[in-house]
């Protein structure tokens, strides 16, 4: 009988097999890559906002405290987005003509809200409470990053459940003293674990495992 395939086909056959295996692995890797990429997580993706508000300018530049605008951060689950009024307390004196601030003035005159694009947006089935986190010693910059260095606000964390669990499983690595909560530049020192353990004790943080119960965040 005559040969059906040429001698080369032996190599080709083996190549095909290896290729398919590689392809499958690559597929898996790609999915996870996309899943963790800014495309999906929006991490480090600045959004265009009605007003290009700069935390850098207001926090680092003018030294305004977080709580001046995010008033309910210590009392409510929601930290609070400043009302137009709050902006106008200063901007009725400063930059009154600035073109950038036109939407703010318009909002006040027309009595319609500014529509910001939400940067830190948890899914609706996850219930996060700012007040309790702040009280237990989780600082702003731990989740929100160095907003004092952000000319326009972006996300610094994926907000994936895995990420939440990192802290809920080992709070000691992230806690800070009450007086450091709003301190942007704060970062853990060498003896953080020791400090963390001490804060856990003094803030009555239950590390027996309740923090990783589904009911802690999902209702």
């Amino acid at each position, binding site marked *: 009988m005559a040969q059906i395939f040429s001698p080369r086909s032996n190599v080709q056959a083996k190549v095909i097999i290896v290729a398919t295996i590689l392809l499958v692995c690559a597929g898996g890797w790609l999915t996870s890559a996309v899943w963790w990429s800014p495309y999906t997580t929006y991490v480090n993706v600045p959004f265009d906002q009605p007003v290009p508000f700069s935390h850098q300018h207001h926090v680092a530049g003018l030294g305004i405290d977080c709580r001046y605008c995010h008033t309910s951060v210590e009392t409510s689950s929601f930290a609070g987005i400043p009302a137009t009024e709050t902006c106008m307390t200063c901007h009725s004196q400063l930059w009154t003509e600035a073109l950038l601030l036109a939407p703010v003035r318009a909002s006040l005159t027309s009595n319609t*809200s500014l529509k910001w694009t939400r940067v830190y947006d948890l899914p609706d089935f996850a219930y996060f409470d700012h007040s309790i986190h702040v009280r237990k010693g989780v600082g702003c910059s731990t989740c929100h990053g160095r907003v004092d260095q952000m000319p326009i606000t972006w996300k610094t964390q994926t907000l994936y459940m895995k990420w939440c669990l990192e802290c809920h499983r080992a709070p000691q690595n992230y806690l800070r003293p009450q007086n450091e909560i709003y301190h942007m530049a704060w970062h853990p020192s060498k003896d953080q674990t020791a400090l963390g353990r001490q804060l856990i004790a003094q803030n009555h943080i239950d590390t027996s495992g309740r923090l990783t119960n589904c009911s802690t965040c999902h209702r």
Partner: protein
Amino acid sequence: MNTNPSGAMHEYWRSLEERARTPEFERWLHAEFPAAAEEWVSEIHRRDFLRLMGASVALAGLGACTKQPLEKIAPYVKQPEQIVPGKPLHFATATTFVGYAQGIVVTSHEGRPTKIEGNPEHPASLGATTVWAQADVLDLYDPDRAQAITKAGQISTWDDFLPELNLALERQQQTGGSGLRILTQTITSPTLGRQLADFAKKFPNARWHQWDPMTRQNIHIATGSGEHIYNVAAASVIVSFNSDFLYLHPAALRYAREFASARQVRQVKGARMNRLYVAEPTPTITGASADHRIAVAARDIEMIAATLAQGLGLVEGIDPTLLADPIPKWIKAAARDLSANQGRSMVIAGETQPPAVHLLVQKINHHLGNIGRTILPGRQVVANPLDQTESVRALIRDMNNGAVDLLFIIGGNPVFDAPVDLAFATALGRAKLCVHHSLHTNETSLACHWHIPAAHFLESWSDALAFDGTPTIIQPLIDPLYAGVTAHELIEAVIRQPVRSAFEIVRESWRTAKPSLDFDFDWRRALNHGVVPQASEEAIAASIQTGQSRALNQSGLEILFRPDPNILDGRYANNSWLQEMPQPFTKICWDNAAIVSPQLAKQEALKTGDVVELEFRGKKIAAPVWIQPGQSENSVTLHFGNGRKEAGRVGRNVGFNAYELRTADALWFGEGLTLRKTGSKHEFATTQHHHAIEGRHMFRAGTLAQFSTDPNFASRMTEVPKRNETLYNPDEFKNAGYAWGMVIDLNACIGCNACTIACQAENNIPVVGKYQVSVGREMQWIRIDSYYNGSAEAPELNHQPVPCMHCEHAPCELVCPVGATVHDDEGLNLQVYNRCVGTRYCSNNCPYKVRRFNFFELNSKLSASEKLGKNPDVTVRSRGVMEKCTYCLQRINAARHVAELDHNRSIRDGEVMPACAQACPTEAIIFGDINNSNSRVSEFKRSPLNYGMLAELNTRPRTTYLAKLRNPNPELASL
């Protein structure tokens, strides 16, 4: 194992056919393939279908791989003071039941009222709520509410209305308003009363008429205005003549609380219970709680009351032999019990009984020296109480004579619900100009020239009095969603213009009523507390006349008219929560029935679902039959309120209209009903169509006597595995912190459904509609099972609320493939919606069948306004996920945060209250930390009556029950 010490006396069953195991019943019970379960949505066309097909494939493939869409967030322009975003506010106000105020506290999220709770400071609430109060919040967001002022159906405005009004009023000015009429429902609002007084001053010849289908006129006529106030707690013997004072009564919440408190038994030591005798024609919540209930025709009750009076030596010349057995026995026992408890007893008669009965009852109470002890004379609460039947009759006469030029109908729906023989609709046609003011556009609105949409009470300023005269100032929580106007503003427009706001009107009437040094302070305090401190008025001493009691006792069929237990006289017809609420005993929803007794059914060869033609006073309607144990032999009960033709998407064409038979001379009952089988059939949607208890021990009950001799009779009925009967380490998970648990006191539960609706409101539970209910897809998280015990003619009626048991060995958790239902460290059995893939295995393995599944997308199609009503603290579930009772996890977490923010203190006992427990009028549901031995729940669990449902399966339920106790009179062992 399952040996029941008292098995003989406790053979529970739940429907008649079942007791008499007829072949028809078998067929009905065994309707293996109920009518067309086939499911296809017609409005989807071919092209859409293909498109959707494509989409669906994508959905199947990529559904999970879609990234979160960007969300906008809109801050306030001016931050309202007191509103902290994310923190709910609570306001005290009042809702009304047949005009009587019931104090409530409304929860508001960012200005949206989302939940109604009772006001503990209010005498008619004591912190509890009725189902209707719970459902009011849904009415507020009802997209079918009247949204604009209309003239002859055309949208118009207040400013177009006023000139036309004034034109008409000018003509009335000359005649002193001889052609001017106002028709209202029962009103307790002092402000409205004052306004109508001013109105009478301005138009001396005008008339103010009243019509309320649930009128309490019989009582007012008898007492000459004020209703007695009962101190139920103080009464150790209670006799009720067809009074549903635990459910359909302005003071029901208070009376229920007091009633239950006088029956509460936890330990043998000092165990005492009151004893309730009830004589009624059709089962009621009150009757179900009775120790001795007799089913008697409504028409015979007067005779029975008289006989009782005779037994106490108050009247003579009544021949008790006219009464069929066992009634005389019942009367004798009641009489003896009463006279043995002089001053510690009470006799009460229902508003459906004629004045004569009420007079007799007063006489008896006087004789027993109960007045001033268990019964206090009431104040006049209703503004201008009168015989409403005569009142509406007079109005109709005037209209027919063409004497009415200008008619205001403030609330209500007389075209639909006025006595049919008076022909209100035709008369209304003769009124020259009529203005209707109501929340919904109903049958009456269509017959009127003008319709003014009413502002919902959560949108308006007003005031109202409770049954005992305690005033509450009704304050708004939200600006009117639509062009709603309050009654105050409308009347104001009649008597003086420019019209002031309801706020000013109400405030002014209180300023004049209670002039004080610091009015603003009093006003604010009244608003905060939801009650106006009582100025001690002089109580109206009830006028005691001796009524001549006739011995009636005719034969033949009797027709009974009763308000629908869900939607009352029809005012809640468009409220889907109430429509889908399983009615007490029958568990019917989205429907009403002609309720007949087993004996009558036998005699007429009727089966549940048979459609019969009812003829009464020459009028005919067709109605489906429901055979109800405990119904008096010759009485046929019709619930009025359904059968609405004009009631929005929910209420239109639900059930049949019983008003079509209700005549002025038989408002509540009357003789001369004829009944004819038509041969056609009707499908009821019931949440419990299979009824046999099959000798099982879900529900356990005994008598006080039995309990005192054998305290553990209930817990002994089944054998529960010991904690350590396991191969595993029984303490693998020891629950160190809070251990949440619940006790349901079957002795206190009266089966009023308040928990069911409260849960629905709190937890964003969707409604599914009649068809889905009929195929077994209802969604309520806590259901009320009812069981009958004893004979079909005189059964005991029992209720058992069933929420999730939060088993420590939860069978559901073991089988979930993705860990969507798991335990937390405080013993809660969690359902994590966002993890659930919907295998429904958990439900199969749940012996209590308390899990509910979203077979379709039930929430995305809600109107914008309905979405406003959702509770933001609870996830709105999507299609394809399981859901169930969470012990109101959101409330536990809220309380925990409050406690921890408050110097890390621990949660106090009673600080967390699930919606069901909070709404419960009898405090039958107790929730708390069972690790804390001082908590109320621990105390209840220590009772020997405590037992776990199906605990023999070693599920270790965290929710347990206290067995029900009855306190029968030894004389009446048989009853």
